[in-house]
């Protein structure tokens, strides 16, 4: 019990991305002798506030948060400031003096860059003509990804966004939604998915309907996507490194608690995984 | 003949494919006690539920004091002074005896301008009602589901007779009662009659109606079979009408 107590309030442990982020945090904690408590709000913003409040009640030394809705955390952040508990956020920036740092990838920017990659593919492999279906989930992060992507494709004349489906981060829902979208729009030839249930559901739908579609999408877990990549159905997906983010968050807080100076942003470049570099991720 | 308190004309009613009533008429003066008799499923309860507003007739009309009144809802019938004791009592099992008795006409008092149930006043009044009736129930603060069949019937009787009514309809009021309680109910009917309240009794116990009634109406298969003054008939005559469905005095029923 000698090490510091740190609370790690994640986004939802039902999603692999965040599991991996928590694992990174746990790894750092084990190495540095930190008592890490992981709490799971299950993608519910109000429960996340509750959990942060519970951490403050426990009198922990520092808190890592992965904001579900950034606005909602101002109350607990102030409460934490009053209790002298420093915090960092993952992936979503919150401007508050008590939030020491943002760790992770700015989602809008990353998605815009990925969008430019997609645009390049469309120009090169599809003659600049594409009819795109979007598979999203209505969370702050995924909406930012959608908007970043749209910003990148705005300028292209031959590209049209023809449909948008909400997979609600639930695999079956995403698959049904994608199946219906494909049936309704026989001309869709590109799908961009903003999260892994959406991407998986889309791929399954494309397979069950035997359609030739170029898939692009997010997220971390490579494992279910390796086969589609090899088969050429999935053109590329953006791989973040949530475990790196989680690990850095814990390290940064420990440094801070040890009185060291810490940076206000810890970022990294997400990689676009394609058939060419897939071997690195097996 | 004076204007009757209640007149029902050509009431018909079907349930799905079952014809429960066809063109039944009825009239009753204030202070009159009518016995409605007939075999099972004759339509007695249905006719009375229509009068009490609990069911709506398919056709026919109801007149009160000679003025047409269609009771779309039990509220209207209650406002017109019609009370009914239902065959199944129509009590809310979870509520107490007092709450059931006063349901829909609670005594309230104002506390800081807010209407609040005056529970002790209602309990006291409920006890008085039972005392006046001579009927017995255990504590009036018990939920009625804890009462025996006869006790529940006593509650239903108290509720129908304890408020100012112009007509009290009793559907099998004595079916579950013991001899002493039956005596009390007969006394109650006589008292109501004296104070000018009209009473309709549905009963398979003809002796109850012979004891306190003025007139019999016999029904069978949803139709009126015949009528008799109490002093002008006997048990055998009535049973014959109930069973055969024909009035031996008239060759054919014409209403």
């Amino acid at each position: 019990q000698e090490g510091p107590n740190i609370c790690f309030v994640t986004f939802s442990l039902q999603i692999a991305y965040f599991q991996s982020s928590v694992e990174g945090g746990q790894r750092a904690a084990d190495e540095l002798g930190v008592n890490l408590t992981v709490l799971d709000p299950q993608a519910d913003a109000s429960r996340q506030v509750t959990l942060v409040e519970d951490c403050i009640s426990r009198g922990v030394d520092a808190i890592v948060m992965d904001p579900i809705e950034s606005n909602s955390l101002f109350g607990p952040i102030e409460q934490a400031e009053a209790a002298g508990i420093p915090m960092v956020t993952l992936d979503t920036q919150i401007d508050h003096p008590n939030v020491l740092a943002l760790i992770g990838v700015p989602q809008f920017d990353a998605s815009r860059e990925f969008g430019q990659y997609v645009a390049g593919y469309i120009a090169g492999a599809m003659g600049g003509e594409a009819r795109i279906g979007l598979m999203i989930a209505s969370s702050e992060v995924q909406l930012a990804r959608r908007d970043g992507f749209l910003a990148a494709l705005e300028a292209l004349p031959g590209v049209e966004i023809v449909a948008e489906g909400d997979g609600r981060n639930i695999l079956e829902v995403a698959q049904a939604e994608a199946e219906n979208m494909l049936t309704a729009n026989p001309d869709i030839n590109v799908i961009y998915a903003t999260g892994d249930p959406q991407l998986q559901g889309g791929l399954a739908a494309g397979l069950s309907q035997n359609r030739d579609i170029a898939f692009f999408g997010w997220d971390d877990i490579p494992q279910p996507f390796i086969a589609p990549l090899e088969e050429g159905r999935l053109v590329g997906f953006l791989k973040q490194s949530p475990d790196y983010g989680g690990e850095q968050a814990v390290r940064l807080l420990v440094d801070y608690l040890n009185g060291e100076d810490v940076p206000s942003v810890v970022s990294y470049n997400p990689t676009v995984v394609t058939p060419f570099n897939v071997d690195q991720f097996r | 003949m004076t204007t009757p308190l209640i007149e029902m004309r050509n009431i018909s009613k079907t349930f799905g494919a079952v014809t429960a009533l066809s063109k039944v008429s009825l009239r009753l003066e204030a202070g009159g006690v009518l016995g409605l008799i007939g075999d099972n499923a004759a339509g007695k309860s249905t006719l009375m539920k229509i009068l009490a507003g609990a069911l709506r007739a398919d056709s026919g009309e109801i007149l009160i004091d000679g003025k047409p009144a269609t009771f779309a809802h039990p509220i209207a019938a209650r406002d017109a002074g019609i009370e009914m004791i239902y065959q199944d009592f129509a009590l809310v099992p979870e509520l107490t005896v007092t709450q059931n008795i006063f349901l829909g006409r609670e005594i309230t008092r104002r506390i800081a301008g807010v209407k609040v149930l005056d529970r002790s006043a209602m309990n006291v009044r409920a006890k008085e009602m039972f005392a006046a009736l001579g009927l017995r129930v255990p504590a009036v603060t018990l939920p009625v589901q804890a009462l025996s069949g006869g006790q529940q019937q006593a509650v239903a009787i108290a509720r129908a007779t304890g408020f100012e009514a112009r007509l009290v309809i009793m559907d099998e009021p004595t079916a579950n009662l013991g001899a002493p309680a039956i005596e009390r109910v007969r006394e109650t009917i006589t008292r109501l009659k004296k104070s000018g309240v009209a009473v309709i009794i549905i009963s398979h116990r003809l002796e109850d109606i012979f004891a306190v009634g003025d007139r019999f109406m016999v029904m069978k298969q949803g139709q009126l079979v015949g009528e008799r003054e109490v002093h002008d008939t006997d048990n055998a005559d009535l049973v014959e009408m109930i069973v055969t469905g024909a009035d031996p005095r008239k060759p054919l029923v014409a209403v």
Partner: protein
Amino acid sequence: MFPSRFQNNGACMSDVNSTIRRKAKNPAFDMRMAAVFLVRYGMFIALALWMVAMALSSEHFLTSTNILNVARQAAPIIIIGVGMTFVMATAGIDLSVGSLVALISVLTAAWLVAGLPAYLVIGLVIVVGAMLGALNGFIITLGVPAFVVTLAALTSFRGVGFVYSDGRAVPISDPVFVFIGRGDIFGVNTPLIIATVVAVVGWFVLNRTRFGLYVLATGGREEAARVMGLAITRIKITVYAITGGLAALGGIVISARLSNGSPNAGMMLELDVIAATVLGGTSLFGGRATIAGTVVGALLINFVRNGLNLHGVNPYWVQVVTGIILVMAVLMNTVLNRKAEAWARANPDDEQEVSK
């Protein structure tokens, strides 16, 4: 008097017999039959209307791919809905089916990975599902409301699924499961065949066996069923066990369809299943249940979503419109019901004349 099958005037049995024999000849009676039909099959009509509207307005709707897609989407809901129909017939509810699907999905994948043969895994997880259902039922018969027990199970089962899998989805590639999820027999896809078999067996058990009758009696008036010597406790435990077993089967189908054993499977599935059952006309208060209705309810929900999606309705609006359409369907059914009843007793007076 007009003779009808439902005549209720104290006629003795032989009369009734003769009226039954005569019914077919009477046109008025046929109209009544039609009315009764309308009432009973109101939701069929709603479904049919919707399908016609969609077929007319979207060329993609009546394609075999689309119909089979929807059937495949509806299959798990039908499978589990059959169990839910039994539970609701006893005036119970089971909120835990979605979570049970998740747990089964995790177990299936784990056991396949561990090298157990596919058929053994299928058998095992169905037994696990039935046993967990029976556990629910057992606690319910101790006097805890079904809502509380199965709500707690909703949290717990999925929690166990997460603990067991450490939150990870595991791919399923066993050929048997591939066949269950995406195969077909003579062009009809397997999930649909499984759902059909379950629905037919469920219909048979509910309507033609003692057990089904006892289930309805228990839900209709438990005290009466008890004093008539029915083993209420055993009946209740059994319906929850059945639902657990069917949820496991549904979990197998879902996992096979997604080629994935995931603790996230079946999220919110319970709401769809309950909605399908209630839409179909099974009463939440027990005693009244229909398997055919549940099937129609499940199809209606899925076809409504599908139709809206085919029209490219904004996904936010889909939610709004789905809700409205479902209420409209039930409302239509209810109102139709009343109208049909009124119609069935049109002109009773005339009939009286005839009979005299």
